[in-house]
């Protein structure tokens, strides 16, 4: 019988990674994600895996680079300032086509900011983050159960497309305890990694993992290959949840923790005679642009609610290309909007007295 346990979000991420076959974890302490490292430090030695507390986030992501290039399922995790430090490594991994999973349990910024929940790393996560033309696959769970399922899936997606997949959560999700239902066995989709550096054994030509090519024609070909892969990912891996959208007066777009507040807003607004729909992108990249167009077709307006100063709202506007008026409501610094605040904003938009 599959286990149903009460667990903390961060610990579930670590357990999910182990269940997905990850045996190499490299990290550096930072709040509010540190429980992932604690869990790995305890568990990895028991199962013959590797846990290294690296000298920096920069070193940790480069250990992931080495382990991923050597053919292993490898992972690192951090929180906002630490993720900034890993951007160099992520850009290199994108060009070297290395699969791995990275977790960002966001805190608020800019700078050292604060340790409370925020979603202000959206741009960094979905627009590449480091230098050059590339994308991470960005998965945004909104519950502990989804942290489990999407972490396992992140390893499968990373291996299939040879890309880095990011779990983008926030401090609230990482620190929250909820029931999680584990499966008896995981759907681990292993891929052939004939490209990995494992030693030639003098039996094959040498394998090279690199992100540099000084010949423009060849480097353009690398970029074209990456872009073609990103188009495949967009076609195959886009995920979205839509609730109550049919006949809705207004559509709210929200991801992660905030989407849970919106589920209550739907009920509150219903009492006041306003039908609110929710579109929750589960993949932030690829972004569910088509779903946003389709599900909002009958609504008067779209409102994006986020824990930042207005980031995903830009992708919503691009998706709608002027077809609907788009509004924004956000809080920053670790603050979150209340249901009342959101309902008030909806009434303002719809021109009703609040």
């Amino acid at each position: 019988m599959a286990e149903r346990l009460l667990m903390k979000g961060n610990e579930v991420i670590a357990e999910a990674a182990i269940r997905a076959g990850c045996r190499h974890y490299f990290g550096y302490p930072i709040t509010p994600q540190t429980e992932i490292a604690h869990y790995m430090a305890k568990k990895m030695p028991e199962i013959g895996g590797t846990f290294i507390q690296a000298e920096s986030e920069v070193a940790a992501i480069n250990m992931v680079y080495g382990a991923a290039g050597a053919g292993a399922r490898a992972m690192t995790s951090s929180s906002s300032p630490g993720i900034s430090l890993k951007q160099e490594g992520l850009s290199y991994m994108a060009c070297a086509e290395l699969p791995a999973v990275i977790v960002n349990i966001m805190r608020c910024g800019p700078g050292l900011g604060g340790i409370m929940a925020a979603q202000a790393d959206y741009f960094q996560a979905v627009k590449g983050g480091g230098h050059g033309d590339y994308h991470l696959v960005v998965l945004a769970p909104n519950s502990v159960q989804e942290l489990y399922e999407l972490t396992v899936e992140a390893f499968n997606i990373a291996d299939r497309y040879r890309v880095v997949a990011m779990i983008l959560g926030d401090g609230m999700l990482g620190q929250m305890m909820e029931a999680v239902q584990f499966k008896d066995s995981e759907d681990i989709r292993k891929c052939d990694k004939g490209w990995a550096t494992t030693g030639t054994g003098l039996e094959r030509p040498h394998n090279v993992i690199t992100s540099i090519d000084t010949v423009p024609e060849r480097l353009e070909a690398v970029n074209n290959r990456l872009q073609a892969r990103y188009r495949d990912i967009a076609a195959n891996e886009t995920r979205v949840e839509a609730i109550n959208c049919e006949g809705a007066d207004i559509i709210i777009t929200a991801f992660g923790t905030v989407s849970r507040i919106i589920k209550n807003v739907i009920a509150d607004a219903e009492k006041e005679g306003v039908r609110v729909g929710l579109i929750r992108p589960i993949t932030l990249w690829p972004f569910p642009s088509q779903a946003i167009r389709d599900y909002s077709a009958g609504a008067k307006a779209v409102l994006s609610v986020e824990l930042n100063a207005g980031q995903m709202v830009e992708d919503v506007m691009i998706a709608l290309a002027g077809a609907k008026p788009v509004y924004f409501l956000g809080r920053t610094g670790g603050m979150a909007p209340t249901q009342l605040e959101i309902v008030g904003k909806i009434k303002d938009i719809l021109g009703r007295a609040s």
Partner: protein
Amino acid sequence: MKTVFKKPHALTDTPFHYCPGCTHGIIHRLVAEALDELGLEGDAIGVAPVGCAYNNYEYFNCDVQQAAHGRAPAVATGIKRVHPGKIVFTYQGDGDLAAIGTAEIVHAAARGERITTVFVNNAIYGMTSGQMAPTTLLGQVTSTSPTGRKPELHGYPINICEMLATLDAPVYIERVASNSVKNINSAKRAIKKAFEIQRAGLGYTIVEVLSTCPTNWGMSPIESMKWLEENMIKRYPLGVFRDRTAEAKASAAAGAGVGAGNGAGAEAGAAGGASAAAVAGNGAGAEAARAGQEARNG
């Protein structure tokens, strides 16, 4: 017909791109000869730096990962933890290792990662056209120290071997040079020894090779060799700064409960996590470091 000289198998047929008189070619060859003679090419996984040797994977026949600037020891750590039985080496220059990568080299050495570093020190940034390096000598003119390196402006050169010899974990630290037949033979012996130590799973090894950069030094190849001999070796004395091979072998044998054979040593080390060598005393190394310090002061 008798073959009197041939290319090592561990080198590809690709001609080197290095400038005339640069000793990267010699050092590549020494690494390749060591892999050949120890029968390790098929087990070897190299890590290339950022710098003139960024594409050494064009020349080495073994598997290679190219790393971001200075991060080779972290990348090598990741590789070695996945394949503890393979031979993992980094090949890094002085900008890569002694400036932007100081954190990574110090901590890989401090953890006692069972990897080998070939550290090529030519006292200048070659690829970006001759800027001051951490290892640039006092008074040395570079494009970013145009009137010579001055301690009050630029600080002092960093002696990597002496610095790493203050750590407990490294098993073998030696500085050699690439400027004469005698020194080149000695360099090959050192690189070979480092690989042998790694094969036995004993711990971290680094060989620093003093080298030349005629292009950016503004000298002929022959003048460069002389300059290395007369100036660099004074600041960077050749010699062994740490050799704890015997202790590490004894320690590994005791820890594993079996002989420290090639496979057994590596496996025991991988399973044990912390290096047996890492807990060995630091007496011998400290002495070597002191000897090095004295030689430098003298």
